[in-house]
């Protein structure tokens, strides 16, 4: 569909490049925040509204670990976005059914799985430090749709690999 090719691909290129930059900015922001918790801990406690009389140390440690795990997500996001960008480029060149794309999709699937695991750990830490006095609602934890996306990507990577082999066979057929 020439219309789709002309409209969707340039948007995807731009969007993916913007997301790559945003991902690093997000990482830098979390790193800055994490550093600031060490520089000015009392200010940070007031900022996140830790009620007086609550043992702040476990909350502080939990939030720092969550921030650290958030930073770990940055290279994983980068891997996903850059692989996706390379795949979009092969679509633009009119030759997406190559073995490299199957490997890229497989790498994306592993990264998505790692992100889901991170999300579960973050969700568990969030629950463990949350209390009536300090309610903490994080958008993290086990996600059915997230794990479905992981399975779907692994399957698609396999489909891509098989499709590439079939195309190679077809290309050598006279």
């Amino acid at each position, binding site marked *: 569909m020439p219309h789709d090719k002309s409209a969707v691909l340039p948007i995807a290129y731009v969007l993916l490049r913007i997301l790559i930059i945003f991902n690093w900015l997000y990482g830098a922001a979390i790193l800055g925040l994490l550093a600031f918790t060490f520089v000015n801990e009392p200010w940070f406690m007031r900022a996140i509204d830790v009620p007086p009389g609550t043992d702040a140390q476990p909350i502080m440690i939990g939030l720092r670990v969550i921030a650290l795990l958030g930073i770990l997500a940055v290279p994983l996001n980068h891997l996903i976005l850059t692989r996706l960008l390379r795949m979009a480029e092969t679509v633009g060149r009119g030759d997406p059914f190559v073995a490299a794309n199957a490997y890229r999709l497989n790498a994306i699937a592993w990264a998505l799985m790692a992100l889901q695991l991170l999300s579960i750990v973050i969700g568990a830490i969030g629950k463990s430090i949350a209390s009536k006095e300090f309610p903490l609602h994080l958008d993290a934890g086990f996600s059915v749709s997230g794990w479905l996306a992981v399975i779907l990507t692994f399957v698609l990577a396999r489909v891509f690999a098989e499709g590439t082999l079939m195309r*190679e*066979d077809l*290309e*050598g*057929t*006279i």
Partner: protein
Amino acid sequence: MPISVKLDDLLHQRRMTLTELAEKIDITLANLSILKTGKARAIRFSTLEAICEVMNCQPGDLLEFVPGPSAD
């Protein structure tokens, strides 16, 4: 490769060039050249049929099994 393509010998016997054969069976010279040099991974029945018809030969005249290591 265990399957050897004897197109060169057949062309020589029929006093025919690869270009003439390509025109007669409506296959590009590049593809026929791939077949002749044994670089093809597979041959369609329709191609085999067209070559046999033009060259007046049997598939066995074109292909030969030579025991040896496989390309895969």
